[in-house]
């Protein structure tokens, strides 16, 4: 018979029997998010100037920004929360949030050019046209 002293795991196993479990009773017991967790991207409509730099840099094409329509959309199912858009934003309109997104996929038609589970923000029309060129183009379109 093998002596207990020669089975080094036995002592540890006995300790484990009487120690706190290492796991939690999820989902009744949820671990609070850690500081700095890359959970989801939070967008601030107030400061955004719809320049579209974030959308240009996004490696997964999860952001859709329209300067003309002043819309900002983020596809949570595509976003990999790498943080490139946050680094790119000169207005500090994007921040990393530690809350993981609960992506809501409904039967509703997603905004044009984006996929399901898209969050869309609509900015107010600017006091002045963003670009003289855009206003001119609109005028020409109306006339024709």
């Amino acid at each position: 018979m093998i002596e207990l002293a020669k089975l080094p795991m036995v002592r540890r196993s006995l300790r484990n029997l009487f120690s706190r479990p290492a796991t939690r009773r999820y989902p009744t017991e949820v671990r609070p998010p850690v500081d700095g967790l890359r959970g989801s991207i939070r967008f601030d409509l107030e400061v955004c100037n719809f320049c579209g730099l974030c959308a240009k840099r996004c490696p997964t094409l999860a952001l859709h920004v329209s300067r003309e329509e002043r819309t900002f959309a983020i596809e949570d199912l595509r976003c990999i929360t790498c943080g490139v858009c946050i680094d790119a934003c000169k207005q500090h309109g994007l921040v990393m949030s530690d809350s993981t997104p609960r992506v809501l996929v409904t039967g509703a038609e997603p905004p044009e050019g984006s996929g399901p589970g898209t969050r869309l923000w609509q900015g107010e029309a600017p006091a002045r046209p963003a670009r003289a060129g855009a206003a001119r183009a609109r005028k020409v379109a109306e006339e024709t």
Partner: protein
Amino acid sequence: MKRTVLPMGPQHPVLPEPLVLDLVLVDEKVVDAVPTIGYIHRGLEALVEKIEYTEMGYVAERICGICSFMHGMGYCAAVEDVMAVEVPERARWLRVIWAELSRIQSHLLWLGLGADAFGFENLFMHCWRMREEILDIFERTTGGRVIFSVNLIGGVRRDIDDDELLVIVEKLQELGTAFEETTRVFATDPSIRHRIEGIGVLSADDARAVDVVGPMARASGLAQDVRSTGTHLYDRLDFTPVVEEAGDCLARVLVRVREVTQSIDLIRQAVARMPKGDGQAISVNVRGRPSGETFMRLEQPRGEVVYYLRANGTKMLERFRIRTPTFANVPAMITLVKGCDLADVPNIILTIDPCISCMER
């Protein structure tokens, strides 16, 4: 004698990833093994021609969930090499720390899987519990547990406070003390020895002949480790490769066990030797497009990985080829499986620490 062909995989309890091995058996002895791969080939080398070089780092990180940091680091280091970018020193040290943390978590994961394969469920749970603590460190410092997204071309995205670094070192020292008990279990437990000692012996000559890398080579007595070449700041750390002579499954387990302790020590040294973080830059702006070619070598948890990168001055790279450690170790696995008992095949396959995602890319 009648031969039987037994297909093993692509789904098998010991294989975390799909690999098919057609085992040709005579009675209980394996006389031949024919591997089939290609179940998770994702066409990385074609993809690299279609996306910008700045975006490729995120793809490289996703080659494998265990070496994700190392793949990101290797890719960024290769691009930095081609573009002659001088990476800030603190960023380079942070990369060393995260790389060694990756090694610890990878080895703890593997030791758990190894224990599971030789039927030691209790030890499997124990190793994975310890691994959770490393993942918690990753989560606090990078914001992710598996995919970290901290590597940038030109540095790293996040810094770690000096106080936080000291806390990490303290935590790792505690983990190291707790790990001593586990080391004793792997080294002395009679049931483990009985199961894997003397199984799947790869002699030093055979290891050299089939060009094995990483812990597999070191378990056969070859002191082969990219870290000893001194690249990526390892020349500033006291480092000697862990070597075992026996070349059997137990030696391969013990190399990894000892490397966990060694990595904890390397992180302690790195924290002591890195410049203090008071406002130091951790990244530099990289502009322009890469042109030229390079080879970049790294020591991943599974062994040496080689990145070949060729750029032609456009936004897309011309070629990006990765020789992963599993790809180098599979011929050795086939050599070892031939002549062994069927019951030992799972242990032999696992002790090469196969990562099929890495191998197929």
